[in-house]
């Protein structure tokens, strides 16, 4: 099995996390107002960009 590409993995995980949070919000399990949502959104986006940039770096 090939070594996993870390950056793609992180981006994928970030998207999955985002989806889970939105899903749970719809279900009503978590009560989240806009502020928290914005925080998670930007956090996921930031993490994904960072991982992608680091991934492009690896020689």
């Amino acid at each position, binding site marked *: 099995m090939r070594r996993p590409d870390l950056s793609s993995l992180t981006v994928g995980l970030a998207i999955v996390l985002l989806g889970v949070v939105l899903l749970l919000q719809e279900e009503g399990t978590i009560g989240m107002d806009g502020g928290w949502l914005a*925080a998670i959104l930007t956090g996921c986006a*930031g993490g994904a*960009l*960072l991982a992608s*940039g*680091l991934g492009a*770096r690896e*020689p």
Partner: protein
Amino acid sequence: MSEASRLRRDPRRAVLGGVCAGFARWLGIDPIITRVAMVVLTIGSGGGAVIGYLIGWALIPAETQEQALRRGRRGRTGSWRIAAGIALLVVSVLLVFRQLEVWWSDAVIWPVALAAFGVALLWTLSRQQAEQEEEESEGEANASVRASAARSMPAALRLEAPAERGARAKRASAFGFGIALVVGAALLFLWAVGALSAASDVALAAIVVVVAIGLISAPFWWSMARRLSAERTARVRSQERAEVAAHLHDSVLQTLALMQKRAGDRDEVAKLARRQERELRSWLAGGEAPRPAERLADALRAAAEDVEEAHGAPVDAIVVGDAPLDDRTVALVAAAREALTNAAKFASEAGPVHLYAEIENGSARVFIDDRGPGFDPDAIPDDRRGVRESIIGRMKRHGGRVEIRSAPGEGTEVELSLERNGR
């Protein structure tokens, strides 16, 4: 690689404790970005982030001198993505602080953060610009030396290749973005504070004044820019001349003087001329210095030169392809050297000795041809037999092959071949 990717503080480039600089080095970006992020987080958390910094200072070990030396330069790809990623992460942390009520006020934090990112962007860009200009002016000097010396024409004009134009456009737009961030931050602050309409009057007045001053001083800026560029060209030209003069003085003049002294000895003069020609040729070609201890092609050429020097017989070396030097190819070079020496000693009367080598994908074939008297392969005198055995034996031990073809009156061919991975 693992050394470079461990997180360490960087005490040498530190403003305080080197935590930000260390993070920046670990990520491979400009420390400005991490420092700005730190400042924004501190303001946003009302000072709480300082605790994080102190913890970092205490827990992250500092980089020792030798680690710094071993670490090489990291590449630049992906830098913008990393910086953007950090910016977004900082925003997300700020939002969390906001939710947790650890907050000053919207009107202050957001403009400050925006302005901080804008400043970081502009700073990084201008630093990159300065570095690049230094590299460029050195590169120009080198390139012009080769070009003008080799072509006896006026120094080459610098034409912008399409790739350069693209990079320049990217940099200009990044500058624009940075300025937009800072201006946007100022406007946001004014709007939040409710002073926007009042500010707009002041702003209008300010803009008018700035434009007026700009128009008045425009010719001054223009002529200064032109003078700078003219000075730079002049500097490059004089660097050129100095380099060419130094080189000619060191090598060519010496050789010419020597040749005049030894004018009676034809062979010696021819040898000096050949040596100087080769050296000047490779200097004009520019490029990297040959590495006969690391590259096979350079090693073969060096062997040919050595034999030519030692025996005064011209050797033409033509090498196609290249490969790094390893045990097997070192043996190949040694065998080639012996074959060349043989040819130069016994067979150089009728013409130059030819070395032709083809190197690709780990396999190599070297041909050494001469137009000497040739010999009958079955009737070798004892002293030459030993040499031949040593050539063949050396090659065989490393999984290579040797073929020697010769006949009386027809010159000699030696073929040395090395296949990839032994036989």
